[in-house]
């Protein structure tokens, strides 16, 4: 087993009295592709959002490349903005709702992080953005406004925007859930392509058939813990836990 690039230790997350994540220990090695499944409201998004500190942790530690995120002083952990911004540069995220910037063209959307966050010269940023847009098959649309694109195209722009930052880890939160069925394929193909490149990815999804082929590891999240973890065959085809079996049964047949 390779040295983990991301380690989660004793993670808890509460929203007020609502105890959503109840003690998660987990690590991700470079090149792993992890699919996270579970019922709606089980905390899949919350878990993913803790990885790049879009949510603050109630308890627990996250280590990136052997270094703990946060600054500890007299037993108190603080998360300075600078540090979190640096983490988010290294851990990219793709959202269900794309979250493209409507006042910028497709190209400007992809250049934005490079220019504003990395401080890159516009010419160089443009070059990289064009390459990333080419990879997701949107060279034709560089000057379009995001609002003019289909959902599938918007999501591919969002992926290009995340990739432009050269993240070490990519987080996908139900990237195809808000797409019309006929547009799901084009986005999944792009994600598949990233898998072939050997990128480290965490994907929350309801596309179990896709998860089976995509993932090196599948996690079933329930009751705030990782109820079952294993290879796609183990978790999706021969689940040991009754909760997992019931969850999969409710999904009915899905094509592998």
């Amino acid at each position, binding site marked *: 087993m390779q040295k983990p690039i991301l380690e989660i230790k004793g993670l808890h997350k509460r929203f007020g009295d609502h105890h959503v994540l109840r003690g998660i220990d987990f690590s991700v090695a470079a090149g792993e592709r992890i699919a996270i499944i579970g019922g709606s409201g089980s905390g899949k998004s919350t878990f993913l959002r803790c990885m790049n500190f879009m949510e603050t942790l109630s308890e627990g530690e996250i280590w990136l490349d052997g270094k703990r995120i946060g600054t500890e002083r007299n037993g108190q952990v603080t998360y300075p*903005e600078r540090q979190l911004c640096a983490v*988010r540069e290294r851990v990219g995220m793709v959202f269900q709702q*794309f*979250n*493209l*910037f409507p006042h910028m063209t497709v190209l400007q959307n992809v250049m934005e*992080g490079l220019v504003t*966050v990395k401080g890159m010269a516009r010419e160089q940023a443009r070059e990289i953005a064009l390459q990333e847009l080419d990879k997701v098959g949107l060279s034709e649309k560089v000057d379009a406004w995001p609002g003019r694109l289909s959902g599938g195209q918007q999501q591919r722009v969002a992926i290009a925007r995340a990739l432009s930052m050269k993240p070490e880890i990519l987080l996908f939160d139900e990237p195809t859930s808000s797409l019309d069925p006929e547009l799901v394929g084009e986005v999944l193909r792009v994600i598949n392509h990233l898998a072939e490149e050997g990128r480290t990815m965490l994907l929350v999804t309801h596309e179990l058939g896709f998860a089976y082929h995509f993932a090196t590891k599948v996690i079933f999240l329930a009751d705030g813990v990782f109820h079952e973890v294993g290879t796609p065959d183990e978790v999706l085809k021969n689940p040991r836990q009754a909760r997992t079996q019931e969850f999969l049964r409710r999904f009915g047949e899905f094509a592998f």
Partner: protein
Amino acid sequence: MDYSWDFGPVIARFDMLAIGFLNTIKIAIVSILLGVVVGLVLVLMRLSPRKWLSWPAAIFIEFYRNTPPIVHFFWFFYALPVLLSVSLDPYVAAVLALSTQSGAFYAEVFRGGIVSIERGQWEGARALGMTHAALMRRIIVPQAISRMVPPFIERSFELLKTTALASTLAYADLLYQAMMVNAETFRPLEVYTTIALMYLVLLVTASQLARLAEARLTAYQ
């Protein structure tokens, strides 16, 4: 009615009305500009996570929203000098009253624009690694501005009309000058009809300019 209209005396003193007209424009522009500054400071304080900044701003805004504008004029002209033990020029007192008033309302306009931006925009920007300052500057404010323009313009028109209260401090705005001309000519019907028309021309012209500005600032949508 057998009133015989006679604009002759009014036209003879039109120079006085012209001075008032220009003073009204001057005080409106100065107060709008200062009001924007006050509004920006207030909204930054109001949106701050630090309570010792957001509370005073919230109280200031509520205070202005719930008191009559003329009271602010009187306060700056008659009350503040007691505190400072210097007397204020009517113009200065009127500008202070107008710019703090409009600042309080502008702050709400700005805040409304900023909080109307969907959560996904904040998250998309944060996930790229942007600092709070960068995401405000690059993502939130540019989108919020286009939504702020219509209420901002509306608020500025209110201010333009409220400038007439400066006459109560004997500032030589259009209304005050009209009162002077009336005192000389005893022609209230002609005098006040004339300045009503002058205000109308001013506001209609301003609204045309505002419409042009609005079209430019909301172009991308």
